[in-house]
């Protein structure tokens, strides 16, 4: 009888149990990452999401370094280490999010108060703990026999894919606090699966189970929401109450009401009438929109005091009632504006289904019915690009209201967030859906100095040029003190439309900034700037000197495209010094927090990564001093980690547009890459690849990725109008061969290193982790500067060089 096979010792890992535990811990780690991103978006802002990704991968990388240094001890007792790390993970998943609330952090003051950096560092260190433990547990499993690594890595990838899917699904039914409890239980089950049946381990399991029960019930997780968000501000006002609260993957919606709760942004100064009673809807405690309780259509007249009303006046001379498309209907104010102007067919797009359910359910009697259930209105829970590509309808007015909050735009909170709504291609599709003489209306918050409003103008002009129109004849730009509105038509603006617009602005005290035939002294009359800046800028942007003007402007106002969809990022890195020169210390007020946080996360990831990669190589670090093939190992796993993440993120971005929903895109991309990668990894199990095979597989990845660089956009464009199911299938099939090949490279390389230099295995895991950190955080920064095509090319280069370095990983077979 083989005693060792029946009862494995603590130095050996039981094969099946290890893979089940790996599957579970990988799922828990990805689930925790998504849950923490959700929690931080709720407590602070979504720009901290990249910090979580960075911390997670840093934890994985650091665990590799720790295992390199502790390798001998761990190898002697693998199963015990594996189980102990999983038990600690279960506890930390529950405790860390709660303890993180104790850290005093006003991240908005980061540019002003250096002590905030210490708070941020403390938060990162705290969040690092569970990822260090999860990475450590996975790393221990990868210290197993080299012939098992393919299957282990497959379990890791498939578990990660399942975790991503599971977490998003769970967000539909669980609160964020309950998600942490569920993830702790998953980690506990993983520990139970591999636990050696010895008293101290069983006791530990029972203790952690009791801790989870006690903490979940006795210390509920409550988000410590930043006091600078709108919700705490409203709740500070006397008599304010939360009427409804729903939570989902797209965020938490709070509906607040009270005597001091008021929301009617962008009204002209001349408006002296009444704003109807309303409640305010907040997403993640911010980004407010109002639901107005109107009694009749006349109650919407306050909306006619905004610049967004202009297109209805421009089409008012027609005999028939106007039709309107509202992109981002929110609380329904723009639907009300359309109805106020007699629209008899309104299509309202609102992607957040929970908001639609609220307005047609609990808020129906509080104003929802008047807009979302009006017989003339069709509400579709769709993304605008997805709707436009599949619809052949045309509209007299297409309304694109500002989708971000008044303050968020100025703070640069969305600076690293892509938007396929504000691109040349998107505006072009909107222009294609205008009826003859119809008007596209794009409104942005007015800024001093102007930034994204000029970028919107430049983007619209570029869309018109692509269609062969001369933008100067097709565009108008107006503004009041709060908003700037661009009006565009596929036909040259008619004299009657120009007259109507002039009258509209004169009645309300709005400034004309650009209009065919407008004289300079007609601009800048009501909300006065030192110079007629908008007029001058529009003349430049619509004239032959636009490139020189754009290049010379302090902020980035170049047209955004689907390849570089970062409309909200207006401060290029090159402008930082100019900003200081221009505004002195006050220049900090213009820093974009989103980009700043990403750059800080990248710098930190690179710095810590370098230290932890080098640490095992120094004499006192131990472990790797005498090991051979360190350089090819470093290069191979560094390039593989970076290349994998760059490719995955680029495909995810392409799928956001193709599948017309960020969640579907994330789920499809993550699932396809991880599951197909897992299958690729599984295909190497028990079949060690020689260096020729590794190089050949690298070249396959290079070839497939190069095809994607050249033809992915065109390939996906062929079926953008297909039903969702078909597009999901096409997306999966497009990714599958690439991901399969990519999935073979990591375990094949790791097995090769394991055969040649076993001591380098955890180090390779660490190197791969750090490269993944850097690539994930760098990707949006690179794409914002150079576009996704350039990032794809970089990924191709990574795999090409990985193939070259693979030649030196082992000796010839």
């Amino acid at each position, binding site marked *: 009888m083989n005693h060792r096979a029946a009862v494995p010792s603590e130095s050996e890992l039981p094969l099946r149990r290890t893979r089940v535990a790996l599957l579970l811990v990988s799922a828990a780690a990805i689930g925790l990452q998504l849950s923490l991103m959700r929690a931080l978006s709720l407590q602070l802002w979504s720009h901290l999401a990249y910090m979580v990704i960075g911390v997670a991968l840093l934890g994985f990388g650091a665990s590799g370094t720790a295992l390199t240094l502790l390798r001998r001890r761990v190898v002697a007792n693998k199963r015990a280490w594996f189980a102990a790390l999983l038990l600690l993970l279960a506890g930390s998943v529950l405790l860390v999010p709660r303890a993180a609330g104790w850290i005093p952090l*006003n991240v*908005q*003051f980061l*540019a*002003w*108060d250096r002590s905030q950096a210490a708070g941020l560092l403390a938060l990162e260190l705290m969040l690092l703990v569970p990822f260090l433990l999860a990475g450590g547990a996975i790393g221990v499993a990868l210290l197993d026999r080299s012939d098992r690594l393919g299957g282990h890595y497959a379990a890791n990838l498939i578990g990660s894919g399942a975790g991503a899917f599971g977490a998003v699904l769970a967000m539909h039914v669980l609160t964020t606090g309950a998600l942490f409890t569920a993830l702790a239980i998953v980690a506990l089950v993983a520990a139970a699966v591999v636990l050696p049946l010895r008293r101290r381990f069983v006791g530990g399991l029972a203790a952690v189970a009791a801790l989870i029960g006690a903490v979940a019930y006795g210390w509920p997780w409550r988000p410590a929401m*930043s*006091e*600078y*968000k709108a919700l*705490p*501000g409203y709740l*500070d*006002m*006397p008599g304010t109450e939360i009427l409804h609260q729903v939570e989902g993957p797209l965020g938490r919606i709070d509906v607040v009401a009270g*005597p*001091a709760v*008021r*929301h009617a*942004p*962008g*009204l002209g*100064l*001349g408006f*002296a*009438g009444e704003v109807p009673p309303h409640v305010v809807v907040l997403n993640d405690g911010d980004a*407010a929109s109002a639901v107005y309780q109107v009694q009749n259509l006349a109650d919407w007249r306050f909306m006619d005091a905004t610049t967004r009303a202009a297109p209805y006046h421009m089409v008012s001379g027609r005999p028939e009632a106007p039709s309107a498309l509202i992109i981002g209907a929110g609380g329904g104010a723009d639907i009300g504006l359309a109805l106020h102007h007699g629209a008899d067919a309104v299509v309202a797009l609102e992607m957040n289904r929970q908001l639609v359910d609220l307005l047609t359910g609990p808020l129906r009697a509080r104003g929802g019915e008047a807009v979302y259930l009006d017989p003339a209105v069709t509400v579709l829970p769709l993304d605008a690009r997805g709707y436009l590509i599949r619809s052949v309808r045309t509209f007299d007015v297409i309304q694109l209201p500002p989708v971000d*909050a*008044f*303050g968020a735009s*100025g*703070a640069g909170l969305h600076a690293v967030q892509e938007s396929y709504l504000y691109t040349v291609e998107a505006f072009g599709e909107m222009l294609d859906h205008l009826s003859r003489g119809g008007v596209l209306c794009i409104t942005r*918050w*007015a*800024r*001093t*100095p*102007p930034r994204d409003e000029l970028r919107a103008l430049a983007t619209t002009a570029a869309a018109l040029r692509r269609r062969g129109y001369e933008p100067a004849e097709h565009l108008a730009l107006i503004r009041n*003190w*709060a*908003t700037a509105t661009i009006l565009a038509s596929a036909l040259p603006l008619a004299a009657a439309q120009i007259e109507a617009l002039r009258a509209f602005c004169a009645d309300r*005290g709005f400034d004309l900034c650009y209009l065919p035939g407008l004289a300079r002294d007609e601009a800048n009359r*009501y*909300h*006065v*700037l030192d110079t007629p*800046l908008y007029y001058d*800028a529009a003349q430049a942007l619509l004239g032959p000197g636009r490139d*020189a*003007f754009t*290049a*010379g*402007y302090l902020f980035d106002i170049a047209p955004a495209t689907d390849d570089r969809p970062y409309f909200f990022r207006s401060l290029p890195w090159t402008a930082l010094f100019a900003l200081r020169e*221009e*505004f*002195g*210390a006050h220049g*900090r*007020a*213009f820093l974009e927090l989103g980009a700043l946080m990403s750059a800080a996360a990248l710098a930190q990831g690179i710095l810590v990564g370098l230290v932890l990669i080098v640490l095992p190589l120094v004499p006192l670090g131990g472990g790797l001093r005498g090991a051979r093939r360190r350089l090819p190992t470093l290069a191979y796993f560094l390039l593989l980690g970076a290349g994998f993440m760059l490719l995955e993120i680029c495909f995810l971005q392409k799928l956001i547009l193709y599948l017309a929903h960020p969640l579907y895109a994330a789920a499809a991309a993550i699932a396809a890459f991880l599951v197909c990668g897992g299958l690729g990894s599984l295909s190497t199990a028990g079949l060690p690849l020689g260096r020729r095979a590794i190089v050949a597989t690298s070249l396959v990845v290079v070839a497939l990725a190069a095809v994607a660089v050249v033809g992915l956009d065109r390939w996906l464009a062929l079926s953008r109008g297909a039903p969702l199911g078909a597009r999901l299938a096409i997306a999966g099939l497009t990714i599958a061969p690439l991901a399969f090949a990519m999935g073979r490279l990591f375990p094949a390389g790791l097995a090769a290193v394991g055969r040649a230099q076993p001591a380098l295995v955890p180090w390779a895991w660490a190197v791969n982790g750090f490269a993944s950190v850097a690539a994930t955080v760098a990707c949006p920064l690179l794409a914002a500067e150079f576009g996704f095509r350039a990032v794809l090319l970089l990924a191709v280069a990574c795999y090409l060089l990985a193939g070259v370095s693979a030649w030196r990983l082992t000796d010839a077979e």
Partner: protein
Amino acid sequence: MRIARCFVLWLLVSVAWGLGAPADAYAADRPAPRTPARQAERNRMLDVIRRYGMTDETVLRAMAGVPRHEFVPPAQARSAYADTPLPIGHGQTISQPYIVAEMTRLLRLTPQSRVLEIGTGSGYQAAILAEFTEHVYTVEIIEELAAEADQRLQRLGYDRVSVLHGDGWEGWPEHAPYDAIIVTCAAGQIPPPLLQQLKPGGRMVIPVGPRYAVQSLMLVEKDLDERFRSRSVMAVRFVPFVSERTGADR
């Protein structure tokens, strides 16, 4: 002997301190400050404000007289005179000193001015306004802030400032019309009642931008015929075109 050494040491430190401190250009005609505490820091703050281009001596004198450190939470006291906005709790801030100075300058206050402030916060801006006129009315919706600011202003001798705990949207109609109104711009809207409470010829100043980082100021003027005209004023000088600054396109 020990006393003599101490005296020499004191003398040296005093001389060094005097050499190191910036020249106090306002000492001659500044009114007696409310408290001499941290006056040197206040003077340095004024130097920073001047570097932003502020030349209005009356505003500078007012800023020199008000002890800003009394208006910030104890945890922020060390940074009270730094060139930054500071958090004061409840998601509210005390603005960067230069912004306070510039907003005050734009109001063009006289001793007869009747001025309304919406959003008392810690009371610092109200205290600055009270250096110009005794008709200062300030409204704060957060009860705790209103009570604390009222007590603080009383304690520091600004007993003519009237503090109301109430909804700033409605203004303070009992004391209207106002020559000047200063209001925090929340979510891109200006309450119509405030515009109505502004006297013809009056001025309203609104900081625009995130609450913790004012980017520009808006000045609303009500004409004698009761029409409104507004101006966007950069908090600091701005030339938007790099080519104009450098003489060449980048």
